[in-house]
């Protein structure tokens, strides 16, 4: 910004842009610092006047309330910090699964919107246009209170083959539980994972050397499955025992149960976000010029090969940045879980705030948690984005 003209005739310092810039910055910082000090001062005065303590010692106190679903050991005697951790893990669980499923569903709908089939095309269009224009919160509450809670009662459970039971108390599915051979079998699985990684790495090297990229996504998991199956027969004892849900008294035992709260939040987030991802995918595919597709056809590539080798690698670069912001949105939107009774970090934070009265500390903690989630997601996606950029030639 400094121009050479300022050096030619001596400019007094109060008109010299270099000084002015420093001055302006000091001024801005001073104003902001002053405002912050003023606000903080008011806060401290108000808290002192009403004898409200401030500090994080309440995290060590007993929480005193129970939580419906938790992935770690938790009871009413646990501390507030543990309660918050349960919330954090619940948020992570629903966000992580949400990201995976919404990507799959979004990709399908996005491709369907470009289908030549009139009906498929229009249905996908209606799906996207409806979901993009209604608020997520209304959709979530609708899903929970008008769909999931209205499912059959537990005594009249809807039975699907499997057996899978659908009730308004939850979905109960058969599940595998560790048997007597599990401790050995676990190591087999680790070996399988290692083999899969090695296979992927070798194939990738080979692909780079020969210029013909094999289907890594097919072969690597296959290697894992082969190792896992071999281990199943070699390892003595039963590694896994199947467990079937059975109605006993007032609840199902055995199998695995998913609560309607969790299902409503997950389904709501997935369906809502998939509409946005579909648009991102569609725009990405359309951004690949028509000539590329025609050239691929001219080279004799099949439709699937065209998609995998020509369209997707190029579309990917357009898709990743907006996709990242959709993932961030999904993570933040998971805070609406409170509307469906799912104990995420926001819901539990509010409960603690209510029982202990520590609003400021709780809000600070919640913000830090969400900032960490956002930061983590964007770091990962930026890393991935850089990686696919390197492939560009």
């Amino acid at each position: 910004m400094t121009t050479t003209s300022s050096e030619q005739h001596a400019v007094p310092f109060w008109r010299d842009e270099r000084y002015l810039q420093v001055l302006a910055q000091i001024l801005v910082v001073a104003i902001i610092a002053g405002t912050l000090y003023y606000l903080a001062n008011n806060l401290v005065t108000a808290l002192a006047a009403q004898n409200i303590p401030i500090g994080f010692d309440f995290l060590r106190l007993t929480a005193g309330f129970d939580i419906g679903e938790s992935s770690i050991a938790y009871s009413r005697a646990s501390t507030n910090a543990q309660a918050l951790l349960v919330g954090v893990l619940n948020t992570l669980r629903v966000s992580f699964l949400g990201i995976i499923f919404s990507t799959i569903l979004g990709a399908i709908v996005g491709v369907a919107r470009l289908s030549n089939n009139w009906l498929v095309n229009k249905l996908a269009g209606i799906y996207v246009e409806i979901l993009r224009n209604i608020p997520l919160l209304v959709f979530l509450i609708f899903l929970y209170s008008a769909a999931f809670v209205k499912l059959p009662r537990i005594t009249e459970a809807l039975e699907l083959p499997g057996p899978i039971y659908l009730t308004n108390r939850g979905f109960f599915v058969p599940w595998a539980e560790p048997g007597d051979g599990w401790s050995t079998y676990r190591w087999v699985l680790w070996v399988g994972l290692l083999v899969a990684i090695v296979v992927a790495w070798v194939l990738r090297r080979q692909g780079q050397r020969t210029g013909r990229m094999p289907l890594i996504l097919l072969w690597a998991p296959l290697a894992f499955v082969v190792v896992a199956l071999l281990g199943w027969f070699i390892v003595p004892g039963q590694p896994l025992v199947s467990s079937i849900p059975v109605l006993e008294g007032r609840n199902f035992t055995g199998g695995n149960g998913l609560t309607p709260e969790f299902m409503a939040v997950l389904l709501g987030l997935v369906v809502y976000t998939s509409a946005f991802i579909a648009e991102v995918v569609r725009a990405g595919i359309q951004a690949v010029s028509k000539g590329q597709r025609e050239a691929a056809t001219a080279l004799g590539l099949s439709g699937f090969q065209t998609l995998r080798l020509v369209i997707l690698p190029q579309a990917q670069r357009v898709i990743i940045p907006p996709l990242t912001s959709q993932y961030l949105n999904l993570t933040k939107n998971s805070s609406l879980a409170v509307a469906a009774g799912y104990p995420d970090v926001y819901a539990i934070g509010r409960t603690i705030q209510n029982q202990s009265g520590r609003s400021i500390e709780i809000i600070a903690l919640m913000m830090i948690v969400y900032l960490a989630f956002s930061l983590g997601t964007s770091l990962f996606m930026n890393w991935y984005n850089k990686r696919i950029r390197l492939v560009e030639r």
Partner: protein
Amino acid sequence: MVRKSFIMLALLLVLALTLAACGQATTPAPAPAPEQPAVSEPAQVAGNTLATIKARGKLICGVNQAVPGFGFLQSDGSFAGFDIDFCKALSAAIFGDPNMVEYRPLTASERFTTLQAGEIDVLIRNTTWTLTRDTELGGNFVHTTFYDGQGIQVPVDSGINSITELGGTAICVQQGTTTELNLADQMAAVGVQYTPVVFETADETVNAYLEGRCDAWTTDMSGIVARQSIFPDPTAHKILPEVLSKEPLGPMVRHGDDQWFDIVQWTVFATFQAEEFGITSQNIDTFMSTENPNIRQMLGLEGEMGVKLGLSNDWAYNIVKLVGNYAEIFNRNLGPDTPLGLARGLNASWVDGGLLYAPPIR
């Protein structure tokens, strides 16, 4: 050029109008009472709640809007209920008019912070008196207006007869209430495993129970009875015999204003005392010629009781005349003639074996 100046003019106007709108929107700082100069201690500012209310011309009362019988938003947009009547009684004591009240419907989760922040003058929203709330939450409870206890309700056909039979059940409960804590405590005490399903509002809680999401739901007995009265089939549900907790419900005021605390406290006592004397809103004028010195003092015919509170001397007269005594308030909202049909129980006057006992007004 003309156009440009037009735009500038418009921008200026926008700015001015917006500022005006903003200036209107914020409640002006309460003017300090003329005798006391503005003092820097905020407790002093918080200490003149009464002056603020009088300057504002209305009382701001934090209430419930969805508990039939206690605080309920009627379809014409007005509020009614047991708690609401105590807001009216306060308004009658201060202004001689029961309707100078602005009702602020609050959720269970936000009620304490709004009180702390000075947004409401008094919280009368079936709030349980506990030590933590009385200390760390920045408020003081005045005398209890309703003695309640927590109960658990189950469908009759569930075959559950005691809380020890609740093993493996799902229980619906409202977030941020003492009921959530009591439930956890009691179930831990009897060693029963259960799954809490926690909702933000009472409506959602009840709804989930009625749809069969939970085997049982829990809240204060009065709340259960109130809700049950509007269930599609009230007879299909029953309350378990165990009472999980003591739930003294009463008004709560902010820390740091003793005069205001006294006013709310004695407004409650006045309704007790009027019942004890047999004074009702119907017959109160016949007491104006009484010789009983206690009644004369209460009704402001003798002594300066109201002035001692910072009110006019007919404060108690206004409460009873315009709102009624405790029995009237109870019967109007919760009593046998209402859909709730609650018995007085612990909430009877001490002369009838209840717990309502007002200190002498003298």
